[in-house]
């Protein structure tokens, strides 16, 4: 295939706007996959992705399309993750493209994530092909969508293709547009070979499988290569393309998307966004846009059964093989014993990892209150990074604390603007400016502390806007803030796993909510249990778990003793599954449940 007949593109869309369905239609239409083997949502391979209906891992595929002009084109589709936690991955997938389909739900219109991703695509100089999807829905509002395209994204309305991926409307037109509108591969004229890395997965037999886009030169089996970010040298064992299953090929040349296997085992050594070049003829410059992926959210993960520690460690190791963005290291907690401090890209990433540990490695786990990375300037001048409240130095040793903030783009219906502004204020945010999207919706750009949006911001946004609101964010600067460590005590025993760093002015309210929630989650015991929140030794909030009143079997004679013992044993087993702190049994899910918002 000639380089100028290759087209590399992504589909960018808000969650649920039909990206996966459109991908499936394209595969079908180009006969890349026959309808029979096309299970619903072909490109999302993990069960968890399917359940949550979101794509976590991007998975490319190569198609061939004969356009109306008689020419055969090679179309490489990069399926991108659909969640803000994974925006760097999205940007790397986009960087491997020359064009993008911008998918807009005809009934929903432009959402925050659509704007954010469209901007990412524009930043990468991609050709954008707007596609209005689900036009056959009764609630479709084409005029509005087209107007939004022009107003918000500055894309001429006449460029839009009207489609229904579900019912196969407009698919041919989309393929034509990909072939004719999207530019041929760029950066082909560099003298040396440059290959971009946009993802990697772990294979038990072959080690790391690196997803690549060749920009210039070529790459084949036996090549000596260098990873330019850290000068790691390796030898190529195999290259190939996705059809969508992996298929070995001779060489990959400029404009191709495919995979590469080399003698690197661990995906943690493969940096997304890296540039691969030939060892003997090295490129002078990396492809633009590389960043080190750094976790934003930290949380402790502990086994409920202390004997599961090794099993948990092994499970995490295996997960990390396939997820370079997930980090962990051993730590210990007074309350929970030995476990791991884990770093995640965001809260969704955290939940996914936790769920996978439970399901795939069968370990019951407890996770602690999530934290961001604080920069703490000590009186002695030293600056330390703190990602775990228990590591926060004594207040007397602290000069000031800086916390990470984000710039959030929030789309909301007009009628919920008041509640949303209250929410933003409640979360210590500042609204920088607002913009009208259409007659019914507004866009807010806000600065918020990252730690405030971790737990329930998105849930509350959705709840206030009855599901119509959406948000996207990018990291902003670190800012000084009056932060304190809040401890939680259960029957007088501090439970370090519940400690959190909170803003001084919000400690009382947060403490109260946390205590009340915990009191609700902890089952009734024989005795009354006090749940208290404290800052610097002062109790600031308290809630009680009512004592159990009745738990008694009426009949208990000779014949019942074995049965009765079994019953008591079961009760005890139930308690064993809980975390015992002092004489209080706390259900393992308490540690995650306290995070969930249920005030609405």
């Amino acid at each position, binding site marked *: 295939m000639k380089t100028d007949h290759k087209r590399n593109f992504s589909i960018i869309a808000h969650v649920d706007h039909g990206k996966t369905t459109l991908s499936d239609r394209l595969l079908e239409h180009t006969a890349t996959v026959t309808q029979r083997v096309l299970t619903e949502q072909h490109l999302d391979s993990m069960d968890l992705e399917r359940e949550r209906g979101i794509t976590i891992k991007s998975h490319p595929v190569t198609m061939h399309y004969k356009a109306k002009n008689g020419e055969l084109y090679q179309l490489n589709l990069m399926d991108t993750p659909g969640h803000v936690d994974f925006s760097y991955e999205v940007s790397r997938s986009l960087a491997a493209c020359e064009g993008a389909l911008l998918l807009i739900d005809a009934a929903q219109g432009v959402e925050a994530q659509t704007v954010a991703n469209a901007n990412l695509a524009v930043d990468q100089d991609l050709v954008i092909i707007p596609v209005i999807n689900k036009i056959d829905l009764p609630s479709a509002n084409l005029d509005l969508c087209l107007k939004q395209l022009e107003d918000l994204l500055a894309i001429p309305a006449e460029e839009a293709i009207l489609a229904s991926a579900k019912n196969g409307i407009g698919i041919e037109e989309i393929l034509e547009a990909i072939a004719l509108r999207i530019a041929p591969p760029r950066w082909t004229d560099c003298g040396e070979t440059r290959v971009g890395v946009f993802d990697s997965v772990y294979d038990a037999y072959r080690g790391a499988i690196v997803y690549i886009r060749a920009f210039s030169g070529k790459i084949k089996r036996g090549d000596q290569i260098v990873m330019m970010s850290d000068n790691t040298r390796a030898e190529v064992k195999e290259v190939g393309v996705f059809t969508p299953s992996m298929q070995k090929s001779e060489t990959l040349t400029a404009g191709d998307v495919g995979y590469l296997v080399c003698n690197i085992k661990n995906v943690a050594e493969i940096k997304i966004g890296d540039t691969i070049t030939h060892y003997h003829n090295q490129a002078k410059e990396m492809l633009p846009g590389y960043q080190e992926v750094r976790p934003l959210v930290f949380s402790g993960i502990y086994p409920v059964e202390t004997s599961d520690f090794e099993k948990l460690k092994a499970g995490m190791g295996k997960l990390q093989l396939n997820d370079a963005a997930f980090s962990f290291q051993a730590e210990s907690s007074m309350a929970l014993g030995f476990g791991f401090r884990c770093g995640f890209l965001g809260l969704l990433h955290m939940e996914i990892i936790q769920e996978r540990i439970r399901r795939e490695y069968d370990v019951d786990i407890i996770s602690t209150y999530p934290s961001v990375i604080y920069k703490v300037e000590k009186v002695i001048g030293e600056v330390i990074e703190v990602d775990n409240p228990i590591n926060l130095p004594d207040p007397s040793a602290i000069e000031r604390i800086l916390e990470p903030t984000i710039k959030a783009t929030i789309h909301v219906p007009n009628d919920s603007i008041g509640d949303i502004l209250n929410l933003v204020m409640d979360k210590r945010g500042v609204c920088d400016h607002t913009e009208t999207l259409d007659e019914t919706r507004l866009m807010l750009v806000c600065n918020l502390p990252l730690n405030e949006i971790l737990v329930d911001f998105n849930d509350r946004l959705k709840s206030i806007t009855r599901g119509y609101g959406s948000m996207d964010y990018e990291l902003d600067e670190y800012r000084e803030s009056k932060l304190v460590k809040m401890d939680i005590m259960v029957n007088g025993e501090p439970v370090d796993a519940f400690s959190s760093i909170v803003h001084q002015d919000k400690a009382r309210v947060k403490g109260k909510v946390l205590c009340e929630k915990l009191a609700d989650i902890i089952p009734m015991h*024989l005795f009354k249990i006090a749940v208290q929140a404290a800052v610097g030794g002062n109790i600031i909030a308290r809630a009680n778990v009512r004592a159990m*009143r009745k738990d*008694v079997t*009426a009949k*208990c004679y000779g014949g019942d003793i074995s049965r009765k013992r079994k019953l*008591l*044993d079961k009760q*005890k087993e139930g308690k064993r599954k809980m975390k015992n702190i002092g004489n209080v049994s706390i259900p393992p899910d308490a540690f995650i449940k306290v995070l969930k918002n249920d005030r609405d």
Partner: protein
Amino acid sequence: MQAGLKATIETKKNELGSEFQPKWWGKTLGLYVHVPFCATSCDFCAFYQVQGDRAGIRAYLEGIEEEAAQAAVAGQELRTCFFGGGTPGLLKAKDLQILCETVRRNFRGSLVEWTVEMAPSTVKIDKLKVLKEQGVTRISMGVQSFDDALLDKLGRQHSRKQILKAYDLIREEGFESVNLDLIFAIPGQNEARLKEDIRQAAQLGPDHLSTYCLTFEEDTALFVQLSEGKVALDVDLETRLYLTCWEELERLGYEQYEISNFARRGKQCLHNVNTWKMDQWIGLGPSAASQFRGRRYSNVPDLDRWLEGVKANHPNWIDQSDLNEALLLEDALIFGLRMSDGVDLNELQERFGRKLTRSQSKTIEALESDGKLRKSGGRIRLTKAGRLLSDAVGSTLMV
């Protein structure tokens, strides 16, 4: 008896005769005979029961004869006996006589208490006469309620009128002791209706009363109603009804000696007290449980399979476990605390030759400081609040 079987028994006698007799066994031995037959199954009952026909009852009686002979090999002395069910009273007078004779012929010892359970509808003069002649001292009658509407809810097996008549017959026959069973927390029953049941029961003047909170056991008609949402559990009401029983019966001169058992002074059911103290007992008949010579086990809850095992002198046991001092200490503590008298910790530790674990001692202290338990002398007793939580207390005391 077959020669082979006799030989086996002889060998067993030798094995068992002089073997260990740990000091933790008390001197009493109880015998429980499960009579599995019922006319119909009650909506609340999960005990093993079958509908008896002539052949089945005859086979059962023969089986008991053989099982008794096998069980009595060690020449142990019985002190108490209890016929439970099922509905022992459903047996004809003649069959009751056979069953009583079987016990007397196979076991030594003089029974100080011999209880037979009877449903009001099964109480007949000829049966009572046989039981009295055979030496039965105590009749336990499953009254459940005096309120015909509530009896209906339980799947009516008898009426208030039948209860009163049956009680008179029992009294006329001159049994030393009579117990009446009541059930409370029947759907529709409030405190006032329970008080009325208790008043009527006490008015008859039995020396013993048992009151059981209705439980929804799996495989019962009531459980089905519960799962279908036709009846609902009300834990708060149940709690109040427990307390109503305790307070009312105390007021009427019945001393509570266990969660569900009340008696005039000196009229406690010795057979049951011995099981709660973790003494030994032997159970005969399908589903009957035994705790004997270092083992705890139950007969299979199936008439045919039980018979098979008995005939082959190879009992079909389920839930077998070996006992040891630690386990018995724990059980004597857990089940002992269900009794109002509680347990004497020194006596307990002395008897089983070991100390309470640290966590047990800590639990006891915590319960005491929380008002769920009281210590006096060497004894510990649950308070009323503690007794309402005896399952939770029990599971906390388990090692």
